[in-house]
């Protein structure tokens, strides 16, 4: 009996070995390397210059809110491209769930593995604080992109814009399509992923404030959620159109809700003339809908560039570079960017070693430029 048990353990271990064997293949660098680097890099004093550090000795872990979302996959494509260009190691690591606890686990394991820098798109403004603090305590550089944490806990944020800017952009994309938008009495709705997701809610809040101030005659009829579920998004989309037959505009700042809503409108035979649909999504997911006239315009920022900037700045800091707010960083393939003070995002926390890099610009996609973008 005992031998049988030993053999059972042996089988389980065999499976484990096979899995680990498989696991090593996708990761470009064997585990031994990150193990070796921390010994070298924490010793790197702030004064040391870039030239003393071999890019191959620097490892960055690039963490999305969740994996399997086109937006983050595109950002990762940008991050991997710049990592290859410069020659540092960049691991893409996240879970399929956009939850704080899962993300903390990923960050902790990155710390344990001895990565030199973290570039993260946070699932919560304050939920990662503790994990990032202990990461910083063990000498790891922290950069955020897309979605920020409290500025005390990171060095630089690569921002696509403030919630105010993005909220305004959402509303303006609707207003552009209406004659005399100031005085038009229109009914509109918001449709995005869930009430607990941070960034989309912050844009929607900003959009509501902006509408109240600029377009007092607009009425918000409903806010619905698609739970990042494509099939549900279509059903909810159709139900919105059926319930509010006279609705004029639907704003969908979510990369699943927008194509879902567009498909729903198409299923019901509605085009951009009947109802204005706009929001944020990747151009590749919306190309067909723009071309067949289901919607006229929608927006996004270049997430590949954002990913590249996030990953590069994380690398740049980990390579021993120091900065004070106001400095400029030269990012290969992107260009020179300036580190702005935290106040550009209305933070109260100001420090020389904590700043924000703004994305050059956001793009509005329409029939004229949709083919120019491939992400």
């Amino acid at each position, binding site marked *: *009996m005992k*031998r*049988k*048990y*030993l*053999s*059972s*353990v042996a*089988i*389980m*271990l065999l*499976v*484990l070995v096979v*899995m*680990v064997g*498989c*696991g*090593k293949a*996708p*990761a470009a*660098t064997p*585990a*031994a390397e*990150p*193990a070796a680097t921390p010994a070298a890099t924490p010793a790197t004093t702030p004064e040391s210059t870039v030239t003393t550090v071999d890019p191959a000795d620097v490892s960055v872990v690039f963490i999305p809110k969740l*994996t*399997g979302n086109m937006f983050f996959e595109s950002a990762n494509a940008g991050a991997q491209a710049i990592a290859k260009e410069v020659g540092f190691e960049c*691991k893409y*690591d*996240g*879970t*399929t*769930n956009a*939850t*704080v*606890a*899962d993300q*903390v*686990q*990923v960050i*902790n*394991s990155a710390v*344990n*593995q*001895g990565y030199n820098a973290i570039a993260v798109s946070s699932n*919560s*403004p*304050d*939920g*990662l*604080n*503790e*994990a990032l603090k202990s990461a910083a305590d063990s000498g790891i550089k922290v950069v955020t992109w897309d979605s920020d944490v409290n500025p005390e806990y990171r060095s630089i944020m690569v921002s696509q814009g403030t919630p105010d800017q993005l909220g305004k952009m959402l509303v303006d994309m609707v207003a552009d399509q209406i004659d005399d938008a100031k005085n038009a009495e229109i009914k509109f709705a918001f449709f995005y992923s*869930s*009430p*607990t997701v*941070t960034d*989309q*809610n*912050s844009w929607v809040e900003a959009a509501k404030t902006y509408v109240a101030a600029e377009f007092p005659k607009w009425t918000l009829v409903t806010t619905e959620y698609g739970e990042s579920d494509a099939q549900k998004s279509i059903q909810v989309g159709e139900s919105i159109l059926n319930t509010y037959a006279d609705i004029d505009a639907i704003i969908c700042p979510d990369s699943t809700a927008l194509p879902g809503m567009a498909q729903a409108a198409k299923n019901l035979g509605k085009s951009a003339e009947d109802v204005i649909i706009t929001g944020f999504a990747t151009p590749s997911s919306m190309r067909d809908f723009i071309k067949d006239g289901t919607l006229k315009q929608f927006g996004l920022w270049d997430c590949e560039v954002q990913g590249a900037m996030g990953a590069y700045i994380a690398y740049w800091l980990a390579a021993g570079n120091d900065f004070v707010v106001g400095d400029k960083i030269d990012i290969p393939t992107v260009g020179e960017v300036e580190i702005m003070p935290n106040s550009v995002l209305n933070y109260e926390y100001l420090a020389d070693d904590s700043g924000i890099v703004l994305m050059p610009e956001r793009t509005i996609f329409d029939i004229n430029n949709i083919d120019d973008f491939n992400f």
Partner: protein
Amino acid sequence: MMHKIKQFKAKWEVSLVIFLIMEIILFGMMNPRFLKIKVLLNSANDFVTVAIIALFMTFVIITGGIDISMGSVVGLSSVVMGLLWQELGFNIWMALVIAIIVGAICGAFNGYLIAFVGVQAMVATLGTSFLYAGASLVIIGFSGISAAEGIGGFPDSFRELGHGNLGGIPSSLLIFAFLIIVAYLLLHKTTYGRRVYLTGINRKAAEFSGINTKLIILSAHMLVGMGAAISGMYITSYLSSSRADHGATLTLSVITAVVLGGTAITGGEGSIIGTALASVIIGLMTLGLQMAGLSTQYVGIGIGILLVVSVAIKSYFSGGKVFSKIKRRFLPEKS
């Protein structure tokens, strides 16, 4: 017969221990940093949320039921505590106690639906998982706080719950150890525990022998509710943030831990030590696979294979005959 089963269970735990040790050695060979005491101890911080619920879920699964609403209870208790503290000005520890009571009520309601009304466990708890997750959104909606931002800024004394340590041992491990002892005593050393087993082995027979099986099932679900709430308190402290979506993804991990620990999904068989060991194995495996360079999104494949293979091995030893043929074919030297 009973004796034989007991012997078998003990052996299952032994093989879990052996597996755990070999797992640590193997991952340690792949990445020596894995073996740092600090890394191993702190890994508990991340898996203890699953482990706490799994301990109490063992009770429910032994009675032959299942509870898939505990993830929502984690979020609800976290929100209740945060709101009581921030909006209503409760003392933080008072808020914590009330949140755990709320968890117990949630569990009791599950148990009531299942034992007294007679709804099938999986469907009842699916319904309540929507209900509890919805309830946390509703109370947040009424409080006027953004569900997306959560509630933070808890006092340091509360932070210690998730971040403190005693002689270098992190609080998460201490909480885990304490709850293992509580659950172990409750399940293995009390009349109540024996009744839980009897209810699961044969509910009718238990009923005839004078056990109020309805109460046993209700109380088991209540324990899970409390476990989920405790886990919710821990995670709120650990992340210093009270959010409605805490725990949303725990369900499958918890069930995996319980089942890997040797608890029969059909009820009547299982042990706290097994569940505890399995929780640690899964927690370390997640970390180990990550440290071996595997991206986290693929870790599920590993856990899935581990689950199927280990249970297949287990069912082989409890008498699957055809499997032994397969084994004879593949591993002739060992049979």
